[in-house]
């Protein structure tokens, strides 16, 4: 009797759980749905009031997408963004894992102070640094080059990545493993390569997803650096595009943004199984 009642209650709870989750999901994706629908509609119908949320299928077509592909160098922008994303993700992963390892394990005088300085960089509003950083970039002749964006993105993502990785290394990788390597005559670098890298890989993957998003998102710096059309990344291209068209052609803008999301979604789906486990550690327990 008691178990039956218990089963019923837990079944009800299951139903309740799914209902709430699905409802929440709907609320979360309504704006996205609206975006995709608007991308598929004719421009002229975008501003009709009341808004038509469920247009007949016959009203939908891929005209806006075709227009974008024919009239902009979309794949070039995408390629640029991917290049920036991959190189900066890899560089950031290498540097921040090295740094995290150094901060977590090696005995460096004053390392707490250095770590605090690196972390406090995260606190300065990014926008405030654009002017001085631009002067730095032009000193190294990095303006109007993808490398200018890559190097600075790497530099920006390192503090946060280091912070997360350091926590992961401290909490999830036992020091005894290091010591066994030292006993066998290994150097700190052997430890890094054979212990830290393999064992911290879920965390590195998680950090990389976050960093990968960055070039698809960042606008201020990339707009300052990337002048020529053929080296622009997607956010710059999108914002130029929607302002360049004296009439805001929402259908085109939404079509472009919908397409820009696809690679990010794919990347997320590929790595998502590492995402949760990689973050799931003491790393973010403060």
């Amino acid at each position, binding site marked *: 009797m008691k178990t039956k009642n218990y089963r019923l209650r837990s079944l009800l709870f299951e139903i309740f759980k799914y209902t709430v989750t699905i409802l929440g999901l709907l609320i979360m994706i309504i704006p996205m749905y609206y975006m995709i629908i608007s991308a598929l509609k004719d421009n*002229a119908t975008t*501003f*009709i009031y009341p808004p038509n949320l469920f247009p007949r299928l016959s009203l939908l077509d891929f005209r806006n997408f075709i227009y974008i592909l024919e009239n902009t160098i979309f794949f070039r922008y995408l390629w640029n963004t991917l290049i920036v994303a991959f190189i900066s993700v890899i*560089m950031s992963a290498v*540097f921040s894992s*090295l*740094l995290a390892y*150094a901060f977590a394990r*090696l005995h*460096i005088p004053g390392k707490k102070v250095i770590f605090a300085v690196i972390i406090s960089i995260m606190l300065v509003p990014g926008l405030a640094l*654009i*002017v001085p950083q*631009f*002067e730095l970039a*032009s*000193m*190294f*002749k*990095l*303006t*109007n*080059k993808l*490398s200018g964006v*890559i*190097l600075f993105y790497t530099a920006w993502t390192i503090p946060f990545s280091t912070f997360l990785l350091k926590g992961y290394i401290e909490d999830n990788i036992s020091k005894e493993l290091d010591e066994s390597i030292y006993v066998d005559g290994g150097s*700190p670098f052997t430890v890094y390569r054979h212990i830290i890298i393999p064992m911290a890989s879920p965390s590195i993957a998680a950090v990389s997803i976050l960093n990968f998003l960055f070039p698809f998102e960042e606008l201020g710096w990339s*707009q*300052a650096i990337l*002048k*020529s*059309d053929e080296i622009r990344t997607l956010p710059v291209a999108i*914002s*130029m*595009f929607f*302002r*360049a*068209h*004296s*009439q*805001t*052609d929402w259908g085109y803008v939404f079509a472009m943004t919908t397409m820009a999301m696809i690679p990010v979604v794919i990347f997320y789906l590929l790595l998502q199984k590492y995402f949760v486990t990689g973050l799931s550690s003491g790393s973010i327990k403060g």
Partner: protein
Amino acid sequence: MKRKSIILALFLFLVIAFVGCNNANEKVTIEFWHNYSASDGQITVLETLIAEFEEDNPNIEVNHVFMEWSALKNSVTLGASTGVLPDVLRGDIAFVPQFQSLNVLLAISEFDDYETQAAKVLASANSSNIMGDDYYGLAANTNTKILFYNEDLLEAADVDVPESLDELWAALPVLKSDSVIGMVEPWTGIWNVGPYIWSEGGEVLSPDNTTAEGYINSQIVVDVIQTLADLYQAGELAGPSMDPGATGDTDGWASELYAFELDGPWRAASNTAAGINYGAIPLPEGSEGSISVLGGENFMQFKNSSTEEQVAAWKFIKFMTDEHAQVEMAKVGQMPVNLEALENAEAVTAMPLLPVFQEALLTARARPVIPQWSQVEDIIATKVAEAITGTKTVQVALDEAAAAIDELLGD
């Protein structure tokens, strides 16, 4: 510590690897920043023109870079101290004083043949380049604002095309309905309210641009702003800058929401694209006539370019302001400044409203050419918006504007 130096070395290596090297050849390459619009086909025309120019001048290569309006302005600001600047730029006439205050512009009136070239263009348009005794640019395109109206909406409400400002204001309540708002004014700066003020005999600053007290807060200006405030509060005038949720002017025209707007040549292009049945006249007269505001773009050159680049850039400017290039640009909606192009039959056919604009240009006024102008206009835009939305009474808001501007000009 060892690790640190490895990191450092790697980093330096990457920096050097990425910097690469620039091979200089005999050709002079000039960089040209502009905001010609992509959607109207202006960039395609520009590319054709550049190809022609390069054919005539085989030793010059023009590298053109599109940036939208604010990106253009911000890029020059960012690049000013380090010299990451183009060799030639085509941008808003309001950029001249601001860039000059950054000390980056070249006084191009020092070229021997500047006067000859300047004589080919509208003097009123070129006046926006004078700072002190020198010219810091050459007019590229001009425009002014004329009154556009949606013919279908006017007909439906049985409203005649207004012949005076008072008739215009009187028409707005008549046009107002559930699906129509009489007029739209996208911002509240002098670009927007200036024509109404000037046409009624008001002024923004004293003639020598030293004070606003007694000008921006004079009775005439107060009355003009009061009229706008009454209309706005009755919902007969829309202001997307005061209510960012209001439909933007372009979208509003396309959906036949707005019946009137005082606007420039681009409105003709977007209305035609949206299939709107529209007409346009010069701003209807106020008590002191019809005085619209002068807009447009200038070509500017930069100090930090090498002498060869400066000479090449000047050649390019001359090419772009001659009749041929100006007519080609007129076909895609850029109003010429070249006197011959203004009369050119092809240009007039391409821009049916050209005569209307030319009439309006005869009396149009430039905004004051002072370095602090963008701040002055921001003060005015803020205070006028406070007055129009009724946050403050018109007199109080404009008195505050006068005080704030005088403090700024007094610095």
